[in-house]
Structures are given as structure tokens and as C-alpha cells.
């Protein structure tokens, strides 16, 4: 149980402590990242028995029970598989990044972001509650924004970061809507309970909207068409980030979500129609784009999009085989694609370019890297003896099985072959055009194999790729555990390299044949120079939409954020009148019992008269200082009223707040230039007067109405009765603040903190800007 908390919070804790540790560790801060990821990985391993045993682990903490919110973790085969990949590859990425980063890069920030991301991702896959899952989901969005924009001095990086956060947030918003609807109809947001209620949910009239909204979130995160546009631009991130986020973890969050909700939603036709079709379209389109690209990272980006499409298509098949194929391919893809990214990182690092038109003949100068690239490319192409082959076979098999369900579904095996043939072609392109041919003379740097530290991570992944490719049964337990979790049935599959002469094998043969044709020089050139059918227009749409939405937002905000204090006050006062007035009218509270209103002591009258005089003074005095003092008098008189009414806490607070405000005012005014009071137009004055009179009049009526109702029971009695019994305090005001309504107080001090920091930041920024201007 503790292990789950450990796994989720260790990365966050280490990320928070990174700035402190960096003071000691300096440039070797990478070791801190490695330690943290190793600790997390160890935690995940210790959870293995829940994935492979019979009972999943389900930990549950109450968070805000009155809102029906809880904080829970759920470890079964599926979440464990993901946690294993995230933490395992996390270790390798941390090791690789330690060698990859260069001196001017802020190392500490990089590793803090990376750990922040890792924690969010682990929280996402281990959450038992959809609401909590969304919170972690958005945390991954934020951390990936920071990582993509890590080299924020370049314009492309900023563009890519903004694009990724906007596109995935749009999907995320839709997903929140879907989740809220789902929670409302099912009465719970706990995933295990939702699975138990799957029948009811599938019968509900809102089934389709919910499914659509949640899938929008998953598709945008997993870069499915037409949301795929953000992933290629996200390649501006440092390569370890691309390898981690954009091949093996974050983009798989969508796949994870679809697998997680698979038992809740699958079974209806809409599921296959939406999930499998979108996956199919994405797979083929993205593979085609990948073939057209010349930048190695762009090829890999589109290749990832395409492979994610393949997985999502298989998940859409709604049968056990599809789930199994996906579970297996998730692992394999993480291994070979993660490795390919790392290899591209090495090539970029050592040669200074990623352009395949410039890279040639690297097999002479970078033999070790060439071996790794060979393994990665062949696994990606789906060639026997590499892991990609086995899982791709399974997906073919699942796709072939669909023909039996409905005739139109034969599009799945057909396009699966076409997509895979394109995949074959670009995989070959990556390997042969970079490592074969004559040695290039135009490279920015003289290439050679990287240090061992950079070869370790891709090397290990390559070993896994080959081992799983030759002996697929080593992954059997894990795949079975994940499949059982996706389909909620116990499965007992065997994974073998050789299936006999099945339709799937013939599909593989056809794939290779078409792939070879495509790879032939002439076809390749044709593809690369052909006009894309419509994919680019999505990008064009984004580029049109982005500046326009910014302008629109600014206009919209300008409507109610006038930057004039007077208007803000008007909004606030107006809302008080409207809302409180509405309640008064709705509940028919306009009843007044005026007979004892005038029974007050003489000194109360004196205070009241002074109060009125001071208030008038605030409005009529010319000098600022006099106004402030007058306002102070109002405050102190209010304080006197509190004392008369025997409310010492309020009186004390009022007194102190007043002292602080007067000091603040004097401070500000003392240094302000003596500007002339603006002559306001008559209409403006009338308007302000009207607002004041209405507000004042309304508050008077409101207070009188409330006073007339004082004989009915109020919440005050509850507090008076329970303050000592439940909270052990006799000062009811304080007990309400720190106990009964502690959550409000927490909110208030957070606001106070933000206000303080805001003033600090704004004034400091102003000073710095002024200094800069002065020095220029």
C-alpha cells in the first residue's frame, strides 16, 4: 500500500528538492534524477505481485467526502504494465540525458521537469478515480509543455510547446465534460465501480456523447488524426524528452485511457466505429507523412503517430485478441521506438544534423550506433526475429478476424497491410539512407560513436527488442496480466514466434513486398514530392486559428477587465445587489419587524452619527490624506460597533486590518505624484452616485430584513453547540476558521499569498524594466 504512494510521490518530491540539491551537486544533478527514477522503478517492481496475482491492489483515501471525491490508486495488470514502462524507461532516459545535455543548458531545471513529468504520468496510470486521473492528465500536459519548450530561446520550440498544450487541452476539456457526465449518470467516478456498472452505462441515453467526449481527450493526447499536428512540432524538445514523452509514455496516455475504459464502453458498435476507424485513418496517413519527411526526428514523430493509430485500432476491435495485441505492441513499441529516438539523438549529437539528405555512410564512423539503428529499424518495420514482428502479427490476426463480424470491416486488414507497408518503407529509409552509401562530406561535425553512457540506454532497449523478438514467451505473463485487466476476463495466451501459415503471416509477406516496392528509389521520390491530400490543411487551420483566438480572447477579456478599479467595484457591488436581492425576492424575505429598531443606547447613536459624518468625509474631502484618514475613522468606528455588539475577534481583526490599510494607503499616496483630480463628466458622476445609492439602500434593506428574521434558527446555533464538542475550542469564530470551514480559510490564505507574490513580482518587474531603460 505504501509502495503506491512511494511510486507516485517520490518523483514529485525529488523534483521539488532538485533546486536545493543542485546547489551541492552542480552539474552532476543528473545523478539525482537517476537515483530518483531508480527508487521509483524499485517501487514499481515491488508492486508486481498485484499485477500477476489474482487480486488487484485498490487503495482508497477519502479526500472531500461531502463532494464525493476520493483519492485512490488501483494496481492491476494494465496499470502495472504502464507504470513499469514509465519508470523503467524513465531510468534509461535519465542515464542518457546525463550525457546528452551540454554545458549552457540548465541541468537542474531539466531534471526537475523530467521527474515532475514522470510523477504525473505514474499518477495518471495508477489512479483509481477518473477525476484524479484527469488532474494527473493535465499535470502531464503542463510538464510536457515545459519540456517541449525547454530550449525556449528558439522560436520553433516555443511554437511547438504552445501548440502541444493548446491541442491537448482542447481534448482535455472535452474529456472533463465527458467524465462529469459519466460521474453524474453512474453516481461514481471510481474506475472499478464504473466497470461494475458498465451495463447500465451502455444502456443510457447519454452513452454516445460521453464516449465521444472522453475519446476526444484520448485522441488529442495520443495525437490521433486530426489532432496529430502537435506531435511533429513537439520534436523541438531535447531528444531524451522526445524519446520519453513522445514515444513511450505521454502519447500512450490516450492509449492507456482507451484501454482503461475499454470494459466500460466496449461492446457497443459505436466503440469500434469511433476507436478503430480513427486509429486506422491515423495509422495510414501518418505513415505516409513519415515517408515524406527528411528530418529523422520528424520521421519518428509521424511514425509514432502511426503506431499509436495501429494500437488504438486494435483496441477498437473490442475482442480479447485486439486487447492482447495492443498490450504487447505497447511494450514493444516503447522499446524499439524509444531506442530509435535515442539513436537519432546520438546521430544529432555526434554529427550536428538530423537531415537524411546530408547523412550518409555513417556505418564506417559510427559502427556501434549502426547496429542499434539496424535493430530499431527492423523491429519497427516488423521483420521476424525482432519484437515488432510478433505483435504486428497479432494485430493482423485481430484485424483479419473482424471480417467475420461485418463485411465492411474488411477495410481493417486491408489498410493495416497498407499502413504497415508504408512503415516498412520509412523504417528502411531511416536505416539505409543514413548508414549506407558513401561517406558524407558536408557534416557539421566529424562523427564518431558516442561515450558508453549514451550507448547504455539504447543498447539495453535493443537487447530487449531482440530477446522478445526471438523468445516472445518471456513477455507472456505481462501481456496476459494486462489483457485480463483490459478485458476483465482471465486470459491465458501463449506468445510464439511461429504461428504456422496463418492469414496473418501472408499479410506480413504482402506487407514486405509492397514495402520493398515503395522503398524502390522511384516510388520513394514520387511519394516525397507528391502533394499531401489534406493533412496540411489541419496545420493551416491551427495557424489561422491561433493568432485569431488570441486577439479574440484579448477583446473578450477587455470587456470585463477594464483595468479601472471603479469598474471592478461596480461589478462586485452590482453582483451583491443582484444575487442577494434575488434570494430575498425568491424566498419572500421582505418582512420587517421595525418596532424595536430604535431602542439603542445614547452612545450607539453617537457612534452612528460619527460613522455617517466620516463616510461623507471620504467622499467630499479634496486632499488624499484627509480621505484616507477619514476612511480610517470609518474603520475604527466599525471596530467600536463590533465591541458594542461584543464581538472581540471581529473588532480586533477590523482594527488591525484598518491599521494595515491606512499604512498601505499612506505609503502609496506618499510616493505618488500629486496629480490633478480629473474633472469627471456629469453623467459619470450621476452613474456613480446611482450605483452608490442603490448599493447602500439595498444593504440597508437587507440588514433590516435579516434583523427581522433573527428569531428563526440559524447556522450559528449549530456552531455554538458543536464548537467545543467537536473541535475542542471555545472561541467559535476561530473554530469556524480553522476547523469547520478550514478549507475556505486555506483558499483565502492561498489568495493572500498569490496577491502578495503578485505585488512583489509586478513592482519588481517594473523596477527592473525601468533600470534597463535607464541604462540604455
Amino acid at each position, binding site marked *: 500500500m505504501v509502495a503506491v504512494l512511494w511510486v507516485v510521490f517520490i518523483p514529485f518530491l525529488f523534483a521539488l528538492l532538485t533546486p536545493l540539491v543542485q546547489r551541492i551537486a552542480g552539474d552532476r544533478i543528473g545523478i539525482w534524477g537517476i537515483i530518483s527514477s531508480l527508487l521509483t522503478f524499485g517501487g514499481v517492481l515491488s508492486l508486481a505481485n498485484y499485477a500477476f496475482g489474482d487480486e488487484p491492489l485498490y487503495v482508497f483515501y477519502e479526500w472531500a467526502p461531502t463532494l464525493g471525491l476520493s483519492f485512490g490508486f488501483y494496481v492491476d495488470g494494465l496499470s502495472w504494465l504502464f507504470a513499469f514502462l514509465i519508470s523503467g524507461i524513465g531510468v534509461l532516459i535519465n542515464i542518457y540525458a546525463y550525457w546528452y545535455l551540454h554545458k549552457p543548458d540548465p541541468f537542474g531545471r531539466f531534471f526537475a521537469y523530467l521527474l515532475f513529468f514522470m510523477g504525473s504520468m505514474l499518477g495518471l496510470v495508477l489512479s483509481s478515480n477518473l477525476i484524479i486521473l484527469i488532474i494527473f492528465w493535465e499535470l502531464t500536459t503542463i510538464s510536457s509543455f515545459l519540456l517541449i519548450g525547454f530550449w525556449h530561446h528558439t522560436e520553433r520550440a516555443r511554437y511547438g510547446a504552445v501548440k502541444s498544450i493548446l491541442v491537448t487541452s482542447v481534448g482535455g476539456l472535452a474529456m472533463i465534460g465527458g467524465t462529469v457526465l459519466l460521474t453524474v449518470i453512474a453516481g461514481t467516478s471510481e474506475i472499478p465501480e464504473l466497470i461494475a456498472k458498465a451495463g447500465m452505462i451502455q444502456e443510457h441515453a447519454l452513452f454516445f456523447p460521453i464516449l465521444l467526449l472522453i475519446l476526444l481527450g484520448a485522441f488529442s493526447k495520443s495525437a490521433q488524426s486530426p489532432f496529430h499536428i502537435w506531435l511533429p512540432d513537439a520534436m523541438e524538445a531535447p531528444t531524451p524528452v522526445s524519446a520519453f514523452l513522445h514515444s513511450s509514455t505521454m502519447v500512450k496516455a490516450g492509449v492507456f485511457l482507451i484501454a482503461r475504459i475499454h470494459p466500460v464502453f466496449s461492446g457497443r458498435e459505436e466503440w469500434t466505429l469511433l476507436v478503430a476507424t480513427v486509429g486506422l485513418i491515423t495509422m495510414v496517413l501518418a505513415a505516409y507523412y513519415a515517408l515524406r519527411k527528411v528530418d529523422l526526428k520528424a520521421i519518428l514523430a509521424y511514425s509514432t503517430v502511426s503506431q499509436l493509430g495501429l494500437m488504438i485500432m486494435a483496441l477498437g476491435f473490442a475482442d480479447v485478441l485486439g486487447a492482447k495485441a495492443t498490450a504487447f505492441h505497447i511494450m514493444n513499441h516503447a522499446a524499439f521506438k524509444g531506442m530509435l529516438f535515442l539513436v537519432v539523438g546520438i546521430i544529432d549529437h555526434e554529427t550536428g544534423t538530423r537531415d537524411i539528405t546530408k547523412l550518409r555512410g555513417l556505418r564506417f564512423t559510427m559502427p556501434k550506433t549502426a547496429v542499434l539503428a539496424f535493430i530499431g529499424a527492423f523491429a519497427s518495420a516488423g521483420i521476424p526475429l525482432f519484437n515488432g514482428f510478433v505483435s504486428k502479427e497479432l494485430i493482423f490476426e485481430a484485424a483479419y478476424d473482424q471480417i467475420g463480424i461485418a463485411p465492411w470491416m474488411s477495410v481493417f486488414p486491408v489498410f493495416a497491410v497498407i499502413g504497415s507497408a508504408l512503415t516498412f518503407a520509412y523504417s528502411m529509409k531511416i536505416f539505409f539512407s543514413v548508414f549506407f552509401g558513401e561517406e558524407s562530406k558536408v557534416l557539421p561535425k566529424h562523427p564518431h560513436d558516442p561515450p558508453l553512457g549514451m550507448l547504455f540506454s539504447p543498447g539495453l532497449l535493443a537487447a530487449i527488442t531482440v530477446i522478445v523478438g526471438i523468445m516472445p514467451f518471456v513477455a507472456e505473463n505481462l501481456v496476459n496480466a494486462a489483457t485480463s485487466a483490459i478485458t476483465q476476463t482471465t486470459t491465458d495466451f501463449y506468445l510464439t514466434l511461429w504461428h504456422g501459415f496463418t492469414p496473418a503471416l501472408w499479410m506480413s509477406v504482402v506487407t514486405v513486398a509492397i514495402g520493398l516496392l515503395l522503398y524502390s528509389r522511384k516510388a520513394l521520390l514520387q511519394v516525397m514530392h507528391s502533394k499531401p491530400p489534406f493533412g496540411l490543411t489541419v496545420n493551416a487551420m491551427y495557424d489561422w486559428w491561433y493568432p485569431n483566438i488570441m486577439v479574440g480572447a484579448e477583446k473578450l477579456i477587455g470587456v470585463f477587465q477594464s483595468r479601472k478599479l471603479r469598474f471592478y467595484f461596480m461589478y462586485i457591488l452590482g453582483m451583491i445587489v443582484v444575487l442577494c436581492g434575488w434570494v430575498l425576492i425568491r424566498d419572500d424575505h421582505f418582512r420587517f419587524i421595525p418596532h424595536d429598531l430604535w431602542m439603542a443606547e445614547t452612545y450607539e447613536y453617537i457612534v452612528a452619527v460619527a460613522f455617517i459624518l466620516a463616510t461623507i468625509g471620504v467622499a467630499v474631502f479634496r486632499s488624499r490624506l484627509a480621505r484616507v484618514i477619514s476612511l480610517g475613522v470609518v474603520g475604527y468606528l466599525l471596530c467600536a460597533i463590533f465591541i458594542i455588539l461584543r464581538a472581540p475577534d471581529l473588532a480586533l*481583526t477590523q482594527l488591525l486590518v484598518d491599521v494595515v490599510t491606512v499604512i498601505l494607503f499612506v505609503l502609496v499616496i506618499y510616493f505618488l505624484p500629486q496629480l490633478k483630480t480629473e474633472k469627471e463628466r456629469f453623467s459619470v458622476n450621476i452613474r456613480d452616485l446611482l450605483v452608490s445609492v442603490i448599493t447602500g439602500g439595498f444593504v440597508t434593506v437587507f440588514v433590516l430584513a435579516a434583523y427581522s428574521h433573527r428569531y428563526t434558527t440559524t447556522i450559528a446555533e449549530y456552531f455554538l453547540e458543536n464548537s467545543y464538542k467537536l473541535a475542542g475550542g471555545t472561541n467559535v469564530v476561530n473554530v469556524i*476558521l480553522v476547523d469547520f470551514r478550514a478549507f475556505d480559510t486555506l483558499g483565502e*490564505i492561498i489568495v493572500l499569498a498569490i496577491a502578495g507574490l503578485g505585488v512583489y513580482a509586478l513592482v519588481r518587474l517594473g523596477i527592473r524594466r525601468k533600470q534597463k531603460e535607464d541604462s540604455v
Partner: protein
Amino acid sequence: MISLILNRIARVVVHIILLFSIFMLFKGHNEPGGGFIAGLMAAVAIVLIYITYDLKTVKKLMPVSYPAMIALGLFFAAGTGLGGVMLGYPFLTQTFDYFHIPLIGEIELATALSFDIGVFLVVVGATLLIISTLGEGSK
């Protein structure tokens, strides 16, 4: 504008106010007081130094970073809430108990106090941060 009278009085009064504010903080659960009031009071005491002397003196007497103080306060308040979660209660569940300490006698300890200390720190930190930044910025 250094006034001799203010100067002399402030030296004495500041200590009393600060002491009293801490008194207010600790007895707030049962009598008038509490983190918010105590925080404002402590802030006022320090502002008194600022008015009598200047920001430099304040910084010399209290060499702390106000943003860090705010952060620490939020950490206390939120940490109190999370403490309950760790023990399996909802967020911000408070509890209390009575202890007998020799010489002092019966005292009550409540988790609400640690929450209140958080409030205290945030209030002091934010108030002083705003006043000192404005004071510095307007020069």
C-alpha cells in the same frame, strides 16, 4: 522624519506587540485571537519599525525572505490537511487532545494550531511583502 519619541517608544513597544501576537496565536482556539489576528498584529509591529526607522533596519532585524515565509505558511496549512489524509481521514480533518504537563498543568493541543500557525505565517509574510515592496518600489 525621525521622531525621537517614536524612536524610543517603538523600541519597547515592538517587543510587547510581537510577544502579544504570539500569545494571541496560541490562545486563539479558546479566547479572542487566532492566526489571522496574530499575523496582522505581528506585521503591524514590524511595520512600526519600518515607519520609525527604515527598511534596512527591518531587514537587519528580520533577515528572512517573505516569499519563503508565505511558502512555509502554506506548507504548514496544507500539510496539516494532508496529515489527516495520510491517516485515512478526509482532507483537513482536525483533531485535538488534552495533555497534562508538570508545572504548567492541563493544556490542550489541537492540529488546528498547526493550521493556524500556517495562517499566521502567510498573513505576516504577505502583508510585509506587499508593504516592503511598495515601500521599496516607490522610492
